[in-house]
């Protein structure tokens, strides 16, 4: 009896200890993220908790700019970062150069093993010159050209005429605009230059710098000369709405009024178009590849682990779940239209379905082709500086205050000055 009591109390004690240790093992993981990616993480929680019931997820969502500023501050001061941090494409190079994020190419993470499972241009974006990898890709923005089928029909122009080459794009554009008074071929001529600059790179070249940090912008570079010349031709033929950057007031209004015949952007634009940007024109838009067999990426998101994180193992489990689980990637695509970076998720039946807004066109197949044709581009810490200098040079060409060679020579000098 005594023994039975003793063993009972011992087993009770053991159970109590176990349950306490069980309760202690519950880890709260904080995830720093921005809209709409926050809805993706939120949607992932139930599925993730089925696999990891002991990891509780707390989402800290801030506006896009605030999120990245807060992350910069947290990395600079060494405290205040979340366990998992979402990073937008535009910021990856900046964070990659710093030492604040865990190198996930090393054990126990060994992210390199997943490389072949992802669209091939995504990994190089998060890898530094010295081979460290700071973030895992989750979604991508394959570039696509959207066009108004009704405007093309009225002008007797086929979609193939538009995207055979950049010259044919401009020629067809003239016909479209003259057949549809009050319309524009594209919101801003500079968008075309941006695509041409981003495509047709020689291997090992970055956008503005080569491997040895030599400036590639020059009045003799065919890539930059063509980019500036085509953009100028569009501006001179009065084909663009001169709306400036995407999401500007003129850009938005031009969409809402149905004054645009084409737009080049990431596949994600359809979500905006159907929800608010061009709600009234459902069924009139269609999608195809960018002109001149250009394939380029419009953004994308990543997840990284700050060195400060106290729960790196759990953080990595969540990142793996968010990025390498096909079901989760498809759920993300359904939730916000975040195009999966994981190739396995791109074979889901959903891809063979028509997109209702695009008159049931199977546009996702077009975007998948684009995604798998985009070439990796080497990123450089000074890309944002060069980006701005080139944009200024382009605007000087577009408004006629500089010639193409003049603007490119000036830009070359300014970039070289910053790169010394």
């Amino acid at each position: 009896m005594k023994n039975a009591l003793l063993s009972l109390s011992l087993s009770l004690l053991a159970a109590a200890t176990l349950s306490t240790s069980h309760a202690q093992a519950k880890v709260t993981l904080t995830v720093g993220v921005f809209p709409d990616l926050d809805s993706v993480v939120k949607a992932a929680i139930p599925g993730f908790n089925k696999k990891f019931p002991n990891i509780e997820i707390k989402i800290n969502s801030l506006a896009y700019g605030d999120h990245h500023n807060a992350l910069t501050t947290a990395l600079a001061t060494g405290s205040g970062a979340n366990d998992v941090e979402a990073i937008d494409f535009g910021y990856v190079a900046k964070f990659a150069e710093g030492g604040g994020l865990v190198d996930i190419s090393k054990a126990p993470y060994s992210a390199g093993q997943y490389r072949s499972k992802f669209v091939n241009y995504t990994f190089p974006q998060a890898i530094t010159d010295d081979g460290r990898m700071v973030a895992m890709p989750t979604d991508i923005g394959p570039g696509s050209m959207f066009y108004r089928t009704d405007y093309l029909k009225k002008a007797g122009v086929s979609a193939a005429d538009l995207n055979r080459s950049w010259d044919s794009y401009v020629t067809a554009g003239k016909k479209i605009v003259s057949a549809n008074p009050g319309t524009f071929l594209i919101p801003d001529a500079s968008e075309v230059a941006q695509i041409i600059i981003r495509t047709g790179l020689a291997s090992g070249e970055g956008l503005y710098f080569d491997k040895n940090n030599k400036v590639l912008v020059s009045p003799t570079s065919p890539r930059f000369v063509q980019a500036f010349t085509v953009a100028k031709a569009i501006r001179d033929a009065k084909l663009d709405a001169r709306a400036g950057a995407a999401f500007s007031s003129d850009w938005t209004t031009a969409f809402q009024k149905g004054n645009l015949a084409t737009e080049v952007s990431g596949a994600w634009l359809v979500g905006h178009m159907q929800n608010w940007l061009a709600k009234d024109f459902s069924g009139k838009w269609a999608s195809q590849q960018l002109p001149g067999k250009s394939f380029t990426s419009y953004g994308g998101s990543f997840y990284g682990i700050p060195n400060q994180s106290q729960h790196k193992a759990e953080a990595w489990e969540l990142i793996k779940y968010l990025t390498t689980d096909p079901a989760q990637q498809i759920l993300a695509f359904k939730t916000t239209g975040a195009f999966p970076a994981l190739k396995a998720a791109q074979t889901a039946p959903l891809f063979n379905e028509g997109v209702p807004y695009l008159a049931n066109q199977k546009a996702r197949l077009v975007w998948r082709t684009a995604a798998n044709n985009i070439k990796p581009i080497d990123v450089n810490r000074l890309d944002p500086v060069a980006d701005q200098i080139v944009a200024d040079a382009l605007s000087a060409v577009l408004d006629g205050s500089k010639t193409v060679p003049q603007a490119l020579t000036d830009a070359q000098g300014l970039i070289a000055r910053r790169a010394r």
Partner: protein
Amino acid sequence: MQASATAPPRPKRSPAERWESFQRRYAPYIFISPFFILFLVFGLFPIVFSLYLSFHSWQPAAGLGSMKFIGWRNFTDNLTDPTFWQSLRNTGILALESGVPQHLIAIPLAFAIHTSLKRVQGLVTALYFLPYITSVVAVSVIFVTLFSWQYGVLNVVLTGLHHLPLIGGLFPAEKINWLGNRDFVQPAVASVVVWRYVGWNTVLYLSGIQAIPSDLYEAASVDGATTGQQFRYITLPLLRPIMFVAITLTLIGNLQLFEEPYIIAGDSGGIGSVALTTVMYMYRTYNFYGDAGLAAAMSWLLFILIGALTLVNNRIFGKSRLSGSD
């Protein structure tokens, strides 16, 4: 005669007395400490740190450990950067374009409100002051919509006026691309700044005018001075101290112009970066280029410029010229 060598033993104080003496001696410091703590944390520390930073090369995302001392390099790099000089030029032009009209409108307006609109003075002042207290983001966004090239109300009105008989020729036949043409971006931004700050300056000048003794005006009108003469010979000279304050505030404010050009022309300063002010460039250098040291040095160069211009303003309108020594 001889004082006792040993002081009488001090009576032991009770805890209550000790507490009271502690309170009397230290409580004031505790009460005023929040100011000093806040000032140290949010005032003095950033100033000292930014000075320290301006002599270092630092990529914030790489953590504090990556800071490297580089001497005056950040200053020389800024001073040889054509974009920095362009941003200073833009700032100067915008400061003038938006600063001068503010005062040219506000002074006569304050005088008119004081002399002719006495009954509705409060209402009119409140109306003029409204833009100042409205969110600058909301104001700028609305102006962007008004300035829109294809769809803006401003162009609709102007081209509509063009069709009027007689005066139609004064207005443009074609829509003006306010924010897409480098000749119009700066005036567009400046007009928003003027609109926003005229009310503020009017209130300042109104308070100045109200402080001028009314018997001066009475004496002047007895002597047959017209309203214009009263304005010229009484109001303007006596407003000088207020002018000094108002112009100093405008000077400092305009050289730190950020929100209006940032929202109206975009973060790169619009077409040809003509509305890129120095503060915007500083923000861009830190936030987009990730170069904190260069941005800190830029802020100190701007500080020196503002200091110098304030001194010049002090020479023109300052105290030495107010005491009647001129």
